[in-house]
């Protein structure tokens, strides 16, 4: 290593392990430090998106199963929480149910669709998602297309929502890291690379895909529920929209597919800029996402995390040539894995 300042690697890794906790503390103190309501709202939305991004990333990033149907989980979570909170159930109990219902639904969707591979799986998830939206548009008890209003008979406290969402996002990060560094996570990475080879070493690809699909659905569903309570009004054109599915997919792709912190980064960037884009370019904001997606795929398939990984490497080892066999994704993964302390 040619770094000017010598830092023993153990201390370095200690610092890396501490970073996420430090971040958590800072975020926990922010509202007390006097964050404006508008910023609290922005952070809240960001935490919700980070959670869905982490959920999608488990299935799409780590396991390589690209789904366009996560709006189903988000919407089911939102409606489950909405119906329960409206009937006076404890909101946190409702959030649990908001995870459970999409978790169960994920099996209904996964059992047939995981028989398909690659693009066929992706197309099937679009079908399921659209069908669900149409059904919800016509379902009487949820108000159909006109949406559902949640009446909660307690005063609205924005800070409570902030902490709920922060806790949820932190749990999603922790769960993702645990999964990624476990036996289960290893099977997922193997499935992404070569399903048959994984099966020849004792991994059951179908069962593992179903399992991670359920975990991803729970993340996304809880996020939907937490959002619904805050928004107090949801409708199928919002939470069940194809657009929602695309947003959820876009975030980990922006941030860096297949890495936990990449997914977090994607959620943060998306959460922070999305509103600005919608406000400033109402007609063409979707077009911008499309252009961004193409740009990322062409220029930096490993997203912001991949880009940062490359930059860090350049800074750390000046003059060393990039060797072609080593892809940016792996570098990013290595960098991020080290940051994660795993």
């Amino acid at each position, binding site marked *: 290593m040619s770094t000017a300042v010598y830092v023993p690697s153990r201390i370095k890794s200690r610092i890396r392990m501490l970073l996420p906790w430090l971040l958590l503390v800072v975020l926990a103190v922010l509202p007390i430090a006097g964050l404006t309501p508008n910023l609290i709202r922005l952070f809240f939305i960001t935490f919700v998106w980070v959670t869905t991004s982490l959920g999608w990333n488990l299935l799409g990033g780590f396991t390589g199963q690209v789904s366009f149907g996560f709006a189903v989980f988000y919407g089911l979570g939102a409606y489950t929480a909405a119906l329960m909170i409206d009937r006076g159930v404890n909101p946190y109990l409702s959030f649990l149910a908001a995870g459970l219902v999409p978790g169960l639904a994920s099996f209904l969707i996964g059992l047939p669709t995981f028989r398909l591979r690659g693009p066929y799986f992706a197309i099937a998830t679009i079908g399921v998602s659209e069908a669900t939206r149409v059904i919800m548009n016509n379902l009487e008890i949820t108000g159909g297309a006109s949406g559902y209003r949640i009446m909660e008979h307690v005063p609205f406290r924005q800070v409570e929502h902030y902490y709920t969402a922060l806790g949820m996002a932190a749990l999603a990060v922790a769960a993702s890291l645990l999964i990624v560094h476990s036996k289960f996570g290893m099977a997922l990475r193997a499935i992404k690379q070569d399903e048959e080879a994984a099966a020849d*070493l*004792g991994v059951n690809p179908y069962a593992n895909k179903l399992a991670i699909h359920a975990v991803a659905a729970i993340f996304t569903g809880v996020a939907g529920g937490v959002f619904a309570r805050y928004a107090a009004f949801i409708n199928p054109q919002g939470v069940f929209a194809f657009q929602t599915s695309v947003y959820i997919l876009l975030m980990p792709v922006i941030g860096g597919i297949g890495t936990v912190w990449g997914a977090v980064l994607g959620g943060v960037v998306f959460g922070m800029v999305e509103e600005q884009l919608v406000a400033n370019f109402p007609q063409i904001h979707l077009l911008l996402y499309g252009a961004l997606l193409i740009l990322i795929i062409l220029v930096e398939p490993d997203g912001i995390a991949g880009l940062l990984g490359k930059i860090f490497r350049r800074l750390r080892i000046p003059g060393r040539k990039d060797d072609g066999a080593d892809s940016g994704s*792996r570098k990013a993964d290595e960098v991020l894995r080290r940051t994660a302390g795993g």
Partner: protein
Amino acid sequence: MPEQHIYGFIGPNGAGKTTLFSMIAGALQPSAGRIRSHGKDVTGKRPFSLVRAGIARTHQVVRPFRAMTVLENVQLAVHFGRKNITNTAAARDHARQVLAWVGLDRVADTLAANISLGDQKRLEVARALATDPELLLCDEICGGLTRNETRSMLDLLQRIRQQGATIMYVEHDVKAIMAVCDHVMVLNYGEKLAEGKPEEIQNDPAVIEAYLGKAGSKKRGRSVA
């Protein structure tokens, strides 16, 4: 089939060697006949459950998980093989032992994409071995290797047998088969042509005919021994 033997399979291209392996390992379903292991019928079982039943295979064309290190490749097999270890540290330790045993410890922390073909072939064997199989199916593990690499691979096979596993071994290189196998079966067009000890096979007229043509013409240039 007797245990703790190396069972060799040879035959011309398209004789059905790899197909036979794929059927035993569960990748293909046999259209007729049954496959039994220790008297238990395992026909039509999925590959992952066969691994847990003690049957593991290597691939003729190597299929390493390229974005994983060599160690991680083997660790996966330790996790999901017959030992079924959940603890990652324990699995990693065991994987290191396997790598040292097969002689891949020097590249343990290299990405599987970046090691030589010879090492990737060896990794195929190491992974299959790490599942702790009773029956190891080795499909062309010496294909494309140098003479030295081939020799050390054959050494490895014999050491695996000494550890108590039974090996089914398919190879194009007849010399390699004859050198290590206790028993050889010759396949042609999906049928058994001959079977016996290596020395018997080499002199079998039906085998010579399949390999060299009817007249035993020397122009074909490929000798059976």
